[in-house]
Each structure stands twice: as C-alpha cells, then as structure tokens.
C-alpha cells in the first residue's frame, strides 16, 4: 500500500517525458513560465486549469506544434531541438488528439487512419487497412469505416481521431480537451475509449475538466494557472487537500455543479 500523497510510479527511474524550466512567449505574453514536469512510462497525467493558463501550449510544445524558447524538453531520451530528425522522431512517438478532432474531411474514416502509416512509414496499403480496421473495432465504430467525417457524430469523429493517433504506435498520447467540443451525451463514449487505453498501460497526458475521469485514471493531477504549474499531486491528495488558494478556487468553481 502506498500513501495517498505518493505517486504510483517512481519518476526518477523511467522518465518518458521531461520538461525542465520551459519558457515560452507569444509576442510579449509570457505563456509558459518555468514549467517543470516529469512523466514516467505508463503514467497518466491529467492537466487542468482555467482557459488561457497555458495547458494546451504546454502539451503542444511536446510534439513541436509550438516551439518553446527556453528550457529543455526530452521525449523518450530524445531532446527536442531544431533538428528536423529529432522532431520527426519525437512526433512518431507522440500521438495527439485535438479538441476539434481535426480529421481530414475529404478522406473516409479508414483513409484518415491509413494516410500517416502509408505516407510516412511506407507501410503496405492492405496491412495499414487491416490495422486500421482492428483499431476502429477497438474504438467500437468498425461499421463507420467507409464514411466521411462529416457523416459522423462528434463522438464518433473523436474516436476516429484517437484511432488515427494510435495508428502510428505512439509511446505517449496527448489529449487536448478531447471532450469539450462534444455534446454531453457523447462525452462518455469517448472517455470510455480513453479509460481502456489507460488500462492498457499507455502513457497519457490529458487536458480535461472531466474530474470523474481524472479520479478514475490519473496518477498525477497538474493544475496550471497563468502559465505556471501551480500544483501537482496524486488525485487523492489533489482533490482532498489542494495546497494553493488558486487550486482551491478553481476546484470549487468546477466541482460545485
């Protein structure tokens, strides 16, 4: 048995993601301030915080959709630099799911899945298709394989997007508010898939305000505000005894409903 205040995994041993003193500005706006975060292999991190707090920017820096200006980001032993080979290597290890799905609307669900592997890894088309069908099976929409994104519901689209990210066999999955663009009745079908993924041992960083999900899967809760990580703690402690006043205020705002 471990104490409620202790993380399930020993981060000092097997860090798959490490952010050290990361800083970033948008123009004059200091959007990330001395961000430090270490994620162990297999760990699930849930990031929350008010909008504009830098959550999205932080995880988008991890696969270089945004560029950090100071500090160090290391993903699975590779440091993120301007070297294109490093960026490519990191991107191939990191899958990302966006708030607005960002599926390719001119391709069918299955084509959305196979495009990456076929183009980037030169995988044979029939092999990629077989894997894609298996993944669509896993996110429980194999019957939608031939449909275009515009013909799918939001929940279905987001599940296709998760499957698309999984096609590249990532070691880490990033989720940028995956359910906040969904109608309420579709949130659970997406969260269910994410819980399954978590149970299979995937390393995940999830930005979400679904606190039920956070309690269920998170190993570590991170609270960000105004570009800095204000508090990080295992969920039991985070929810029961938030230390900072800002965390308390935020939790009271989202949990009172």
């Amino acid at each position, binding site marked *: 048995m471990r104490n409620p205040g202790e993380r399930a995994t020993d981060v000092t041993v097997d860090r798959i993601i490490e952010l050290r003193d990361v800083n970033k500005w948008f123009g004059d706006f200091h959007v990330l301030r001395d961000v430090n975060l270490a994620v162990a292999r297999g760990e699930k991190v849930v990031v929350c915080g008010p909008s504009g707090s830098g959550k999205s920017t932080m995880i988008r820096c991890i696969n270089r959709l945004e560029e950090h200006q100071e500090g160090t980001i290391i993903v699975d032993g590779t440091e993120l630099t301007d070297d294109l080979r490093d960026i490519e290597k990191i991107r191939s290890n990191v899958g*990302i799911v966006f708030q607005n799905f960002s599926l390719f609307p*001119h391709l069918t669900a299955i084509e959305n899945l196979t495009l990456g592997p076929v183009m980037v890894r030169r995988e044979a088309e029939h092999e990629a298709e077989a894997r894609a069908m298996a993944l669509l099976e896993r996110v429980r929409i194999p019957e939608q394989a031939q449909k275009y994104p515009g013909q799918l519901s939001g929940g279905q689209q987001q599940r296709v997007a998760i499957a698309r990210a999984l096609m590249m066999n990532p070691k880490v999955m990033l989720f940028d508010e995956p359910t906040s663009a969904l109608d309420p009745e579709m949130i659970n079908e997406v969260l269910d898939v994410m819980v399954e993924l978590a149970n299979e041992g995937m390393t995940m960083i999830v930005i979400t305000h679904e606190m039920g999900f956070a309690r269920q899967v998170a190993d570590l809760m991170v609270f960000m505000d105004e570009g800095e990580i204000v508090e990080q703690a295992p969920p039991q402690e985070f929810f029961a005894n938030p230390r900072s006043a800002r965390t308390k205020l935020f939790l009271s705002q989202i949990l009172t409903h």
Partner: protein
Amino acid sequence: MTSVGTIPAHGRALRRPPPKRESGPIAWLRANLFGGVHEAVLTVLVAWALFLIVTALYEWAVRDAVWFTTDSLVCRRAAGACWAVIVEKHRVMLFGTFPYEEHWRGVVVIVTIVGMAVASGFRRLWSYRLFVAWVVALGVVLVLQLGGVFGLAPVDTNQWGGLPLTLILFVGTVVGGLPAAVFLALGRRSNLPVIKAACVAVIETVRGVPLLTVLFMASLMFPLFVPPELTIDKLLRAQIAMIIFFAAYGAEVVRGGLQAIPRGQHEAAQAVGLTYWQTTRKVVLPQALRIVIPALMNDIIRAFKNTTFVTIIGLFDVLGATRAALEDLNWQPYALEAYVFIFALYFVFCFSMSKYSEDVERRLREGRNY
C-alpha cells in the same frame, strides 16, 4: 383557461401537414403575371413586344434566309439572313491559314480535344488512365499540327490557325497554367523569404498589366533582348505568356482556397508525421482546390476567350480567321451572320464549361457532406 393552439391536454404537439398553397398553371399565372391591373397591362405589352421580335427574327433567320449558295448575289437579292457565308467560308474560318489540303488534320485535332474534354466530364472515367490518355492525345495533336513525321507534310506554327489553334492555346494555357498557379500560390505562403518574394513579384507584376501587353512583350520585346540563336517560336512565346498570365490570376484564387483550410488540418498532418509536401498533396490541396472550383472555372472560361488576343500578334485564331475570311468583298456584307456563328461556337464551349463546373460543385456538395 382555454387551451392554446393545437397542444392537447397530455402535452404532445400534433404532427400536421404544412398549410396548403394554391398550385397549378392558373394559380401560377395569377400570382406571377396577372396579379393586378398594372401587372396585366404590362404582361400584355411585353407579350406583344416579344411576339414582334420573335416573328421578325424568324423571318430574317429562317423564312427569308439563304442557306446554300456559292453566289453572293443570291444573298444580295434575299431579304433574310445569308447563312451561306458560313458554308462558303467555313474552311477558312475553322482552319485559318493552315494548308488547305491538310485541313483533315485540323478536324482530327478538334475531334480529339473536344472528345477528351467530354470524356473528362464523366467522373466514372477519372483515373490514372484518363491522365495517360490526355498525354497521348496532346502528343497526337502536336504531331498532326506540326507534321514532318509519319509522312505528314510539315506545317510551320505561323500557319496554324482557326479552331485548332484556339483549342490548343486554351488547353496549353490550362494544362500549364493550373499547376503553375498552384505553385505560385504555395510559394506566396512560403516561409522562405526568397521564394515568397519571387512569387509575390510575379503575381503582382502580371496582374498589374493587361494580357495584350504581356503578349506584345512576348512577341515584340522578347526577341530584342535575346540573341537570335536563343529565340523561340512565336506561338510558343505567346503560349508561355498566356500560361504566366493565367497562373498569376489562378494563384490568387488558389490562395483563397489555401487560406480556407483551418490550421488544425496542418497540425493534424504534422502530428501524424507528414512532411510539408505530403501534407500539401494529400491534405491541403484536395480540400483547397475543391473550394475554389467555381472561381477557377471562371478563370478557365476567361482563358478560353482570351485566346482571341493572339490575333494582335499575327496569329489567326478562330475569330481572327473569320475576320480574314470576310476580307472577301463579295461576302463582306454578311459579316453579321458569320459572327453569329462564331458567337454560337464560343457560347457552346463556354456554356458547357460553366454547366460542367456547376455539376461538379453539386456532386461535391451531395457526395461528401462537408
């Protein structure tokens, strides 16, 4: 309290058919033509005017018209149109200065290009093979026009003319200009300053001058600056000028499409690991070009009509050839009839393209739901 509307006591609104509207021809007439005294008077007046115009037109174009004669005096005596001028002069009008006994080659060229264009209109045939067929067809067209092989008499490009010249310039402009437009548009959005500056310079310069000027530059100025041994064929120069002109305008249209693609699409492609060119080819362009089909079609139709400008550098396209044919003093009075024919010809081509683009748009709307 009284119950409100059709909401029954148990709270479920009844499903009802929509309210009835009058229909049928009489209702239509009353609604649109005879809604009141003013409308009725106007309708009658307009109908009377239309009747006069149509009968006069019928008498001129059909009843009193001369259809076949080799003698222009017959036309002079007739009250109606002289369509015989078209029959008499069609060879010059359609083939210009191309050697008379080789006109059959022009016929094959027209049939090939029109046939390929019609075939390309069927979506069923869209495949790699259609692309190959176009390459082969354009090869055949060039061989037939240039001659000099397979026992065909060689024909200088100065002698090309008429409808084949119009079609070749048009197809050449679109085939060369569309890809150039895409590259210019991509270049204008490039992060590389040199490429961006070059593309902006080309687009803005060409957009800033009339096509006539570009053609004059190509035909008159260009040879002055280039040593004679490097001079290229006049027709080819005109073609290149038209391609650049088309590309500059097309680039701005394509750029509009590129801008409509949300940033998320680029990011999603990057996250999956696609390179810039893979993203462009597989994600961005398929969506961007679809958006700009109507606007591009507009440019394409304009390119068809712009081929008439080659007249001013001494090439006889179908319009120029018609003007040349009417140099014949015997037939000169019947220019109207000849131009009506040319008008009809241009209209058929441009209207089909316009209808085709409408059809493509509708299919895309229905089929892919985005």
